């Protein structure tokens, strides 16, 4: 078991290294002339050259990567071009705000979509199943800003029951903040619902056809008991792994909803950095997202192995 965990961890670290290399190449090497970017169009060629040398851009690429990576390992993400201040002072407050929004979306979508998937599976082939599957799949392919706009029009402008902006007045309590975050969270929920429900449905269908569910039913257990105690346990395993892989979609969605609702989270920070060609900020944000995604998938993997007695007891490959 320990060996398996170590192996998974090692692979995750390797992936992270490769990711950082990709980000480095895209952020530091492809664009060519950071000195010009920092100093702007009116600086003299001489000062641009001097700055480029100060930034170590005359070194070989691999050495540059090494310098860049060690700097980041020490927590030094560099200075933002657009704000002329350390990137780190913007990064974490923004990430915290995104975490709030993302958590709200997850808290809504996970139980809802699992319920949807299980209900669809229990009514397999009937109208309920078709409705849940079709609606879920259609909604999951609708861009967040499209559903967001429809929601704003209906709930904020016509019915006036929810605020248009995501930003609660400073100093408001948790409930008020939740009220403000609800509308931005729903587009994220809609995008994720279809996928998670689909996997939950597939897991449940497979469990329903299994021998142990048949045995439990033939033993005379009540349907409720069979579903809750025997079936859900098994069908939830693949679902959890999918929930973790969906963090990627969620973060991509954050960029859009945060822009639409003017919410200063990580997604908007990265978007603004991209628009302003603020490479240090962009790289830092992208790396944080990569780390979050890799951690989430790693945890889901490990959790799935812990919870599956067949794997736990057998040991690993």
């Amino acid at each position, binding site marked *: 078991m320990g060996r*398996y965990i170590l192996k*998974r961890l090692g692979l995750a670290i390797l*992936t*992270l290294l*490769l*990711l950082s290399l*990709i980000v480095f190449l*895209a*952020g530091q090497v*492809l*664009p060519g002339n950071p000195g010009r970017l920092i100093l702007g169009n009116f600086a003299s060629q001489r000062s641009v050259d001097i700055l480029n040398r100060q930034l170590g851009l005359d070194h070989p690429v691999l050495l540059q990567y090494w310098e860049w990576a060690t700097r980041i390992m020490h927590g030094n993400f560099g200075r933002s071009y657009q704000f002329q201040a350390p990137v780190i002072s913007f990064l974490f407050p923004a990430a915290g705000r995104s975490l709030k929004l993302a958590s709200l979306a997850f808290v809504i979508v996970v139980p809802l979509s699992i319920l949807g998937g299980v209900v669809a599976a229990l009514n397999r082939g009937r109208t309920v199943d078709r409705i849940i599957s079709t609606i879920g*799949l*259609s909604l999951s*392919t*609708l*861009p*967040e*800003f*499209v559903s967001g*706009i429809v929601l704003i*029009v209906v709930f904020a*402008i016509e019915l006036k029951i929810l605020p*248009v902006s995501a930003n609660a007045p400073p100093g408001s309590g948790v409930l008020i903040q939740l009220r403000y975050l609800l509308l931005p969270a729903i587009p994220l929920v809609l995008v994720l619902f279809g*996928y998670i429900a*689909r*996997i939950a449905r*597939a897991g449940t269908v*497979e*469990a329903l056809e*299994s021998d142990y569910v048949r045995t439990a039913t033939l033993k005379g257990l009540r349907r409720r008991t069979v579903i809750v105690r025997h079936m859900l346990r*098994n*069908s939830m*395993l*693949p*679902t959890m*792994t*999918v929930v973790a*892989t969906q963090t*990627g979609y969620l*973060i*991509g969605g954050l*960029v*859009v909803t945060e*822009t*639409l609702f003017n919410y200063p989270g990580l997604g908007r920070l*990265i*978007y603004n950095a*991209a628009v302003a*060609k603020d*490479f240090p900020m*962009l790289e830092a*944000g*992208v790396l944080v*997202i*990569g780390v979050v995604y*890799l951690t989430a998938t790693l945890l889901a*993997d490990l959790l*799935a*192995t812990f919870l599956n007695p067949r794997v736990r007891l057998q040991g*690993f490959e």
Partner: protein
Amino acid sequence: MSGTGDEEPGGLGRLGRAAVDSPTAVDPLLTLILPVDHGHGAVLGSSAKQVRRQQLGLLLRSRTFLVGAAILLLWIVCAIFGGMFRPYDPLAVNLFTTNAPPSGVHLFGTDSLGRDVLSRAIIGSREILFVAPSSAALGTIFGTVMGLVQGYYRGLVDMITGRIIEAYLALPLVIAAFVFIVALGPSILTLVLVISITFGFLISRTVRTAVLLERDLDYVAAARLQGEGAMHNMFVEILPNVMGPIIVEFTVRLGYAIFLVATLSFLGFGVSPPTPDWGADIAANYQYLVAGYWWETLFPALAIASLITAINLMGDSIETVVIQ
């Protein structure tokens, strides 16, 4: 997900050991689109052409497919011939009729510059209908070649590319797109490039898994014994037998490509402003939602939604037919 055993409920079991032991994690969604057995028997028994014709017949009798195709066709006609029947010039600014609500004169109203929303919606399909299908097609070709090579050669090639792909896919597509757009400069070409590369990586995983299931079957072994080269084995022997998942991948990705192009043009990385474009028009007008001018945003949003629905309807029926 690798290493969780192949009897896990939820579909991983279908892929068999080879896939589960791989260094690259397998997206469980893939297991839903990968057919259990895409019918070598059928292909060997009757000719592949006949199967294709049967599938086409089934599609043309499916109501969902026809509805989707009709909507798609409508937008294609708008993109190509829209210039002939649009009611107004989509670029004509009229500062006397700004933000006019829908009426008999302007069916969908006018935007903040007094431009006709309906005319812009008709012409606004052009970019998305070019960029999305071409990036999905390029991505499918790229992913197919890569998946064939990875699955056929396995070993070191597979491991190294697998790790690079995994690292790249740790970034949400929108974010990866930002990085490349900023690094290479925003243009339609960058958009096609970044979407097709990412799709290629995603599709290569499906193709690779399918190839792994095929490569040790008798017909490939027979070809190898006949002294056929790797190229022949990959493209002539294996490729026709993994076409099912590839077609399904293409249709699924096409829907997602539209999602992405719309999103990226909403974020300002598509065509530049005066050119009509659904995503860009929404970005330009959504600030006026609060003032109650919903039509200039809602109609392009519904246009995007209808296009995506059309692709989904078609994709669903294609998936059903291919898996049958």
